[in-house]
């Protein structure tokens, strides 16, 4: 069977999507996304616009949020704090990777 090549889409800051799309792709409800937006977890492209739009990278965060909500039964406040701290951890890990990349080969264990 010959397989057809499937198109992929980047989940990055260059692609945009609506609140409804973000909800559909992540498993969070629109109400939950609005609440997490108020907590600062998601930053809409134009916060004052009547129709909220987000970057596609928000799908990655929203899917993590959806898993954490389901698996730990977290409320939105707890979820917002957890996501903020996870984001901080990822930033620090990236910084450590960057610094370790500058060490001679064989001295880095990350």
């Amino acid at each position: 069977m010959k397989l057809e090549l499937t198109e992929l889409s980047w989940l990055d800051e260059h692609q945009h999507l609506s609140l409804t799309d973000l909800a559909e792709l992540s498993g969070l409800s629109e109400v939950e996304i609005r609440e997490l937006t108020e907590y600062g977890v998601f930053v809409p492209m134009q916060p004052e616009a009547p129709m909220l739009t987000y970057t596609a990278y928000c799908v990655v965060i929203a899917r993590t949020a959806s898993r954490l909500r389901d698996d730990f039964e977290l409320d939105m406040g707890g979820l917002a704090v957890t996501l903020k701290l996870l984001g901080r951890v990822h930033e620090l890990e990236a910084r450590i990777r960057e610094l370790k990349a500058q060490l001679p080969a064989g001295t880095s264990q990350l």
Partner: protein
Amino acid sequence: MKYKDYYDALGVKRDASEAEIKTAYRKLARKYHPDVSREKEAEVHFKEIAEAYQTLKDKEKRAAYDQLGQQQAGQEFKPPPDWQQRYGETNFSFDDLDLADLFAGMRAGRGGGGRAQNMRMAGEDYEVPVEITLAQAFNGTDIELNLSLPEYDQAGRMHRTPHPVKAHIPKGATAGQRLRVPGKGGKGMNGGRDGDLYLDISLRPDPVFRVTGHDLYMDLPLAPWEAALGASVEVPTLGGAVRLKIPAGARAGQQFRLSGKGLPRPRGSVGDLFAIVRIAVPDTLTEQERDLFRRLSEVSTFDARKALQQEGAK
């Protein structure tokens, strides 16, 4: 179908209360949840725990699970003949299913609607880790995934079905990036949309280049005389070797930036390659080399530890 001991997965007795099951799950979830855990094989452990909890936290599913009887974990078994009549709202082909599919199927068939009553349900999304080489990230690459997903046949029986997907990862991917493959996850039911695949990209460690984002770092070993006198050296890059002019007096740890020789980004720009100088000395010296180094040490006024002495004197 292979038996899984859900009680054992959660580390509770078979007569554990709902509260004990919940407590055990919470403790293990905190330890192994792949979004927060650094434990080895966290995702595998968490899948086992979550699967066990999904069944045991639900009274009806737990009763159905208990009715399967206790078997040896990993042992092939078939549910008792009357089991499906009693618990299975969905038809199953037990041969090619997993125990998790069995109980997920029960969920799909319940809730006052169910599959049989044309409830519209979106297909399941799946996260798939994909490891590519640096060369593949640099050039872009086609990948073929051979997944096995639960699906319903025309007679309404649930099967695990091969689910091959071919996709092109465009150049610009790097570790930690996610790509969405729309509509290639689980089949939607009764008009529900098909699920998606999410590819979680990681890069295979490379013997030469270390990656951070779209920038690359590499060690550039120089002989002592190359570092002292300067040299033109060949440096490997992902796009082919280039010549790099090393100025006289290069020091260990000094970085040379080769602009645009890193990984391409998804939309045009390219990361950089940083070559970090390491001073390499021969493992063994010929007699002539030894003489020359000895002669150099006699005539040179260079003090490699001068800075240390100055700091020590403070």
